[in-house]
């Protein structure tokens, strides 16, 4: 009850902030959340007028990463008409989403001066249930293990109670890595075989903004759309390698997947490696460029020289 009251206050402050940004024409729209069409859910919402802000909500069902909308919104049209102006967008973020936004700025997909980042207090999220009959109130594991409920570099911080950052030890990943290769492969195949190649993970991910995804290329064709094991494996491993040094473990892919695949097995591994091998926590450590976009003489080469060892 007390928590709900606090949430409502936070919600009120968010609406006031958004209203001011829109009324002053500081931004053209504020991307936030509004109530979902099912109980215990929310959905992305583009508030474009001051009166729209009444629909904005802030609760523990705001799990989606709204940063995924930004690259397309800032994509300049091929033939811009003379009235075209680069949009100015306010965006509601949690710690993880904020890291995504800062990452997109670093990768020059989003102009920093054209966004207003509104940082929300986050106590953890409950993703919308994909099972129509049951729904749990369990905070996602990603949130329990989150190292960045709040981050630096936000424009407007909405006051409120946030989780304490978890200690990043990636115990589950280390445990998985200690298993023999055949067992790891078996578990991996079991999980990835659920994939139906719907591409929801890719489209939900803010980092997947390539105009032509490697998986859709025909010249050459790296992978086919068929969901046979070899193709599915190449798609997911390929996508994950492209996230290396960039993934912020926001669980957007996990939540978007209709089949409930444990993609967190990958995202945690990426985060663990980025930290161990490059000292990078994307969006938190203020890296000039993503870790794998540059080469330093002292970069770890263990994966070449000794793949089985860390």
């Amino acid at each position, binding site marked *: 009850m007390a928590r709900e009251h606090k949430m409502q206050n936070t919600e009120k402050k968010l609406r006031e902030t958004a209203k001011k940004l829109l009324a002053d024409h500081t931004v053209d729209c504020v991307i936030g959340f509004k109530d979902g*069409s099912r109980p215990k859910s929310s959905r992305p919402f583009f508030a474009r007028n001051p009166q729209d802000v009444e629909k904005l909500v802030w609760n523990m069902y705001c799990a989606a990463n709204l940063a995924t909308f930004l690259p397309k919104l800032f994509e300049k049209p091929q033939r811009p008409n003379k009235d075209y102006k680069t949009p100015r967008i306010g965006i509601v973020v949690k710690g993880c989403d904020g890291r995504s936004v800062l990452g997109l700025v670093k990768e020059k997909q989003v102009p920093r001066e054209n966004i207003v980042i509104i940082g929300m207090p986050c106590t953890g999220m409950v993703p919308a249930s994909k099972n*129509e009959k049951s729904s749990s109130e369990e905070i996602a594991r990603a949130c329990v293990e989150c190292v960045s409920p709040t981050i630096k570099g936000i424009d407007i911080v909405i006051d409120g109670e946030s989780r304490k950052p978890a200690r990043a030890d990636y115990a589950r990943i280390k445990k998985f890595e200690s298993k023999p290769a055949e067992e790891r492969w078996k578990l991996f195949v079991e999980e990835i075989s659920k994939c139906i190649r*719907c591409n929801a993970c890719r489209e*939900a991910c803010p980092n997947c903004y390539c105009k032509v995804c490697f998986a859709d290329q025909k010249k050459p064709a790296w992978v086919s759309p*068929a969901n046979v094991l070899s193709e599915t494996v190449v798609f997911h491993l390929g996508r994950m390698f492209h996230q290396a040094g960039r993934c912020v473990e926001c669980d957007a892919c996990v939540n978007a997947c209709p089949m409930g695949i444990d993609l967190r097995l990958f995202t945690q591994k990426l985060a663990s490696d980025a930290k161990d091998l490059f000292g990078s926590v994307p969006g938190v450590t203020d890296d000039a460029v993503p870790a794998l976009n540059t080469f330093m003489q002292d970069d770890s080469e263990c994966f070449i020289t000794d793949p089985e060892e860390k």
Partner: protein
Amino acid sequence: MPSVALDSKNLKSFVASTLKQAERVRGPVKDKTGTVLADLSAKSELAFDFANFKLPIKREFFPQCEVISRFDATGSRAESPADEAVVIFGVRPCDTLSLSFLDKVFVDEQYSDPYYQKRRDNTLVVSMACNSPAATCFCTSIGGSPNSTKGSDVMMFNLGNSFVLESVSKKGEAFLKKNQKMFRDPTPKELQKRKQQEEAAEKQVGKVNASATPASLLKKNDSALWDEIAETCLSCGACTFLCPTCHCFDFYDEKQGDGGTRVRVHDACMFATFTREASGHNPRGLKRDRMRQRIMHKFSYAAENFNEMFCVGCGRCIVNCPSNIDIRETITKVNA
């Protein structure tokens, strides 16, 4: 043929008997993710207390990927789906309704899809009426029902201690006749309970005013409406791949040495490159045009071409859309 009854305690032997009559028998069983459609063995424990399978039944007849032909230096040869008799238990009426729609697409007088046709011919669909529709169901609003037999061969009603079975097609009648020593006549109480369950389920299903949708869509040329509906769409394809009536596909050639295979795979009109041509021109390059295409195809073009709305009200798209775009709201907006 009058309906028959099967005591629940005899369900396993019924399945065991079916296993002797068909090469594959599939049905709902529980695994750690929930209830899934799986191949059955004599030991399988069927689980009927679920709303619907996560994946639509179309995949049994129109798989996500299948080899349609093999080619080598001497030419191409059509591949044929396995010659196996299949029985599927536990299919919900919305999913069987989707089969009656897909039949119209894949099987017509001019061009028939031999792959879909063969699987359809070889498969006996045993559907199960819904006792507790999910909150996202709306089958009764688009011409379906939790008790509809359209597209099915045999219909089952779960009364708890027993089942009532009814033949729908000639194939279904032959199946029930073959197994008739497993069955008995239903008692008047059983028939009454079935009727009560049917009525209760119909009442429980959520309602949407959808019947005017085809007519409304003929007038909806306003881009602003589609911009609004598509605003938060990610163009991902989750809705398409989980939809029982979506049937878009693509061919893909897989080279193997001097020869190879041509594979058919599921595709989605929601994907940005679905209609992109080699010249770079893309008739549906804008997200709002793709959203309009999806809705129009289901509720306008299908109505025009097949006299049906290609939606069965199963709610899978509502549950699985990462942006929670709700087709019930879209229908309401379109009819406003």
